[in-house]
């Protein structure tokens, strides 16, 4: 009998596991795959390590910062700042036709760019920054207001509104077009006020550190341990059945698999408990270059692009939405030493159903075809890197679904969040992106806060 069984060895599940094991609980983390990480993972191919998910870690704070999400997370996991050794971004931008807004980890840069391109909006931008809801460990004020409405009342130039929504939705929008203002506040703060950074060794460094901590405290991590069913009796989880036929029992279950996905595992979910999964997914192309990006004049960390004045954050009709996207170069962070190779990653919205309908051979060809189209689309906004590519890879909504179990490959989960982390069962709790916090720091804080609030009392 475990104190807690955690479903999913992603950032939130691992962080919750570290907390619970640290305070003496008998904890088991069940991971369906042979690899940990879930939405933020890495894989080896052709002798190289590729990150999945991570472009940058948001919520950057320099060493010595005592408040804010990163400081909170480090304290809760008993980590020193150096253990993450985050290198800040060099500088990013939002590019729309004929206009480019640069931003960095110093909000003054964005302010001065707005002053230059939207002189009458500078005061409004400051008003928006002041109106953001304070960060709360559960990411909620309970207000449930449309960010489009709130921001549209403060920023009165529609183009600037679109430009500010572009990074915010790309980095955390679970619903189409709009987002709850609480979520907007968290994301805006994390991207523009705190900022972007990355550890030199990528995501695997953070994952390995969490696993090491978890195991040091006696936690048990089981890979290739897929949950077949959460057996429900008397409005509580009675036991967990694994696909290999074994059974496990625990006082409490914490699931990071997603709300709809978790309900589907429950043996007795009633109609009113059926949640709708998210529908927004992405493709990402990865290009390995034989030059560092700065050798051909590309020094930006992340470029958010959109090819018209209106930013349409929606499930596209076609396999990939070529109108907008995100270009990231992991090389362009202020590391002490350079990365070994140049890398460019491009993400864009994608249609899960269209990818899922392809036969295997068509799927393979579509990956190649859309890699080319995506690279050509991005080359309209960043220096053309296509002549120096030595290796490519591409993941699709199908890949995301296969490795994370997220219905529709929806990386930001369902549009409806379970913010207090409770479920319809008295000993089942939810953490991860369906609890409400997204991104790496958000996911980790989600695991920590739900563990603290419900499981450590």
């Amino acid at each position, binding site marked *: 009998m475990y104190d807690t069984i955690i479903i999913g060895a992603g950032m939130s599940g691992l962080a919750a596991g570290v907390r619970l094991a640290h305070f003496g609980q008998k904890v088991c983390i069940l991971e369906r795959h042979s690899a940990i990480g879930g939405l933020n993972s890495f894989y080896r191919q052709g002798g190289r390590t590729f990150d999945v998910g991570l472009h940058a870690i948001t919520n950057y704070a320099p060493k010595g910062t005592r408040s804010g999400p990163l400081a909170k997370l*480090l304290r809760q996991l008993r980590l*020193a700042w150096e253990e993450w050794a985050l290198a800040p971004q060099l500088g990013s931008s939002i590019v729309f036709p004929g206009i480019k807004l640069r931003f960095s980890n110093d909000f003054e840069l964005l302010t001065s760019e707005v002053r230059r391109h939207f002189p009458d909006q500078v005061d409004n931008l400051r008003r928006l920054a002041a109106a953001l809801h304070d960060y709360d460990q559960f990411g909620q004020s309970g207000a449930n207001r449309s960010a489009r409405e709130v921001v549209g009342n403060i920023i009165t130039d529609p183009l600037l509104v679109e430009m500010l929504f572009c990074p915010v939705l790309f980095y955390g929008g679970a619903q189409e077009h709009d987002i709850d203002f609480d979520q907007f506040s968290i994301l805006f703060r994390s991207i523009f006020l705190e900022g972007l950074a990355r550890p030199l060794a990528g995501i695997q460094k953070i994952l390995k550190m969490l696993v090491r901590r978890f195991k040091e405290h006696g936690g048990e991590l089981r890979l290739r341990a897929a949950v077949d069913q959460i057996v429900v009796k008397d409005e509580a989880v009675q036991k967990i059945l694994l696909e290999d036929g074994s059974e496990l029992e625990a006082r409490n279950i914490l699931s990071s698999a997603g709300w709809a996905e978790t309900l589907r595992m429950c043996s007795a979910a009633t109609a009113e408990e059926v949640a709708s999964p998210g529908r927004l997914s992405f493709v990402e192309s990865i290009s390995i270059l034989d030059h560092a990006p700065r050798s051909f004049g590309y020094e930006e960390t992340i470029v958010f692009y959109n090819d018209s004045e209106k930013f349409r954050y929606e499930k596209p009709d076609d396999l990939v939405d070529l109108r907008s996207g995100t270009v990231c170069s992991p090389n362009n962070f202020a590391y002490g030493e350079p990365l070994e190779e140049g890398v460019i990653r491009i993400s864009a919205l994608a249609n899960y159903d269209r990818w899922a309908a392809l036969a295997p051979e068509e799927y393979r060809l579509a990956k190649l075809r859309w890699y080319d189209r995506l690279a050509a689309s991005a080359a309209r906004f960043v220096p053309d890197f296509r002549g120096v590519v030595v290796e490519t890879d591409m993941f699709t909504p199908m890949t995301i679904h296969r490795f994370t179990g997220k219905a529709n490959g929806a990386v930001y989960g369902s549009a409806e969040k379970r913010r207090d982390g409770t479920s319809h069962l008295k000993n089942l709790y939810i953490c991860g992106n369906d609890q409400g916090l997204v991104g790496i720091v958000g996911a980790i804080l989600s695991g920590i806060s739900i563990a603290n609030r419900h499981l450590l009392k």
Partner: protein
Amino acid sequence: MTAAEIRDAILDILHDIAPDEDLSNLKDEVPFREQLELDSMDFLDIVMELRKRYRIQIPEEEYTELSSMSSTVRYLEPRMKGI
């Protein structure tokens, strides 16, 4: 435990919670919240570390007693006498 030992035990907990902090200049009379910007999550951690290490139960309504080093030592002294 003596008052000095309790102070060391608290320092040890603070060092674990905030490994980046230099605690050598900690002022005993000034609230942790002001000096180290500890928040409610951190205070809960001090309570849980005390429970884990010394089996001391601190009721929620008495968390405020832990606001500074001197108040914490004062509060814990009678409770940690036999440890």
